[in-house]
């Protein structure tokens, strides 16, 4: 399904690239073929985007070639200086944090990082943080508050790591504290879900004035697999669970949990990363403009009021 379509798109993309090179070299007779292939590419990609099921979006959100936090830092920000460690136990490579410039404005950047190749994935624990990751994030947030710098977070994690050390060192406490810290941090915060927004481990970087979500990213209280295993009694029901959970950007916008959907290039962010960076940059710029001039007390009040208003119940 999605993967086949993906392969088809990928090979079309490759042949378009080759054709363009040939044409550049002077083989003008290939032009009609290029036009036809481009048309086909757009059609397929559009079809793909429109027909995506929730489960297919899960695959896209987890696509190994999808841009990660590091890519956004390198392509959207300048002069990133990474800061390390929680000053208590260690440094968690599953979360990257530091200062940088966004279009000349000094800001703090914090995000989950899954890693690209096997070696890096292992080093970064597949983007699943330990408590020290969240404690590092809290540290940098407080620095940002101290120096009155806006905070940009990037969310991309299967979830906080379920392990012995993580529990021993207070995974729950670290996540709770990060959430509470963001809830009252006296500086503007913009969070962007770029891939997988997995449960509390994602929300720990997600309490923000503006919450953006890439078109093919997901954000959920539990992974579709986890939900399927518990409620559907079978992990194979993950596609159904994904549908039931309503975890796509569109659903989250409808539910009022996120503020803005960032469009992706046709077929997904990984097919045209450069274009993705441009689209994300534009969305971040817009979000920052919306909040940067609000007096900070008012901004925090609005942030708290927004989260206070989340929830649906009756009262009669």
């Amino acid at each position, binding site marked *: 399904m999605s993967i086949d379509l993906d392969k088809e798109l990928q090979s079309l993309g490759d042949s378009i690239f080759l054709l363009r090179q040939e044409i550049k070299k002077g083989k003008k007779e290939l032009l009609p073929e290029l036009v036809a292939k481009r048309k086909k590419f757009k059609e397929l990609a559009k079809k793909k985007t429109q027909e995506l099921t929730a489960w297919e979006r899960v695959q896209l959100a987890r696509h190994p070639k999808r841009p990660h936090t590091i890519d956004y830092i390198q392509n959207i920000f300048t002069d990133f200086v990474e800061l390390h460690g929680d000053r208590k136990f260690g440094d968690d490579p599953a979360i990257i944090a530091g200062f940088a410039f966004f279009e000349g404005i000094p800001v703090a950047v914090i995000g989950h990082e899954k890693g690209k190749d096997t070696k890096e994935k292992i080093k970064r624990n597949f983007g699943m943080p330990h408590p020290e990751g969240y404690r590092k994030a809290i540290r940098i947030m407080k620095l940002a508050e101290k120096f009155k710098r806006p905070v940009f977070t990037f969310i991309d994690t299967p979830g*906080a790591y*379920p392990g012995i050390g993580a529990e021993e060192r207070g995974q729950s406490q670290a996540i709770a504290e990060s*959430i509470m810290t963001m809830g009252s941090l006296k500086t503007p915060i913009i969070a962007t879900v770029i891939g997988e927004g997995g449960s509390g481990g994602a929300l720990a970087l997600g309490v923000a004035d503006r919450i953006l979500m890439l078109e093919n990213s997901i954000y959920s209280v539990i992974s579709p697999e986890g939900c399927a295993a518990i*409620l559907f009694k079978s992990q194979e029901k993950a596609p159904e669970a994904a549908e039931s959970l309503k975890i796509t950007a569109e659903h989250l916008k409808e539910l009022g949990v996120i503020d803005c959907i960032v469009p992706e290039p046709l077929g997904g962010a990984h097919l045209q990363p450069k274009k993705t960076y441009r689209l994300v940059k534009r969305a971040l710029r817009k979000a920052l403009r919306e909040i940067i001039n609000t007096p900070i007390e008012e901004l925090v009040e609005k942030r708290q009021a927004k989260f206070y208003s989340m*929830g*649906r119940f009756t009262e009669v």
Partner: protein
Amino acid sequence: MGLKDLIGKFKGQKKLNIEKGEWIKCEKCKTLLYSEDLKKNLKICPHCGYNFRMTAKERVDSLLDEVFSYDLFPKIAPVDVINFKDTKKYKDRLKQAQEKTGLKDAMIIANGKIYDREVVLAVMDFRFMGGSMGSVVGAKFVRGAEFAIEKNIPFIAITASGGARMQESIISLMQMAKTSIAVDRMNKAGILYISVLTDPTMGGVSASFAFLGDIIIAEPESLIGFAGPRVIEQTIKQQLPEGFQRSEFLLEKGQIDMVVDRKHLKRTLYTLIKQTQG
């Protein structure tokens, strides 16, 4: 539903489950216990000291000497936010849980006195869909916290929860933020917030208001943690050490202030209130 009806419902429930008198096997020492005796003993096994789970109403009765209200916000009731269906419809699960417990959802906000000190109690009931936190738990916690701020009285949460309520999906995840902001507001207002973790306190509840208490108390042998033990075992492909994620383990690791037996809980809370308030 008025408060009287609510209490009436509780009473009816009691009749159904416990007062009809049944034999219960202690989960720890396997002794057969008469339910009526167990209830009189704060649901602690007289043989081995095992703490059975308490209903929210039983908990309130065990802590408050004077009850002003068993639930300050009895009208708040759950809705099926996203039309969720797994093997069962969420609506049906809710109805079932409501019939079983006589509660509208998994938390009640009680108000009354521990000896002579007025407090707000946010008490969870594990029988209601595993004490899971959805919109109602979030809303009630916030209202309870704001009530404590308004009246300038201590706020005590008694947790018992498997975590966030999956059936409300992302909305339930957001309750973690909502409740944590309520704790922050209590902090800023100088309100004492004690959280009492009982068996089990996991996931989204653990990783929000449960671990944000000024003082964190746990009942003996309670399972407390972020990830469930089975998930951890599957992830690390190892068996977990004996006592892992239990109260005593957490105390040893510096994650909680103390493990307090149910018999001493009320006295401990009272002492802490006197030591920090007024």
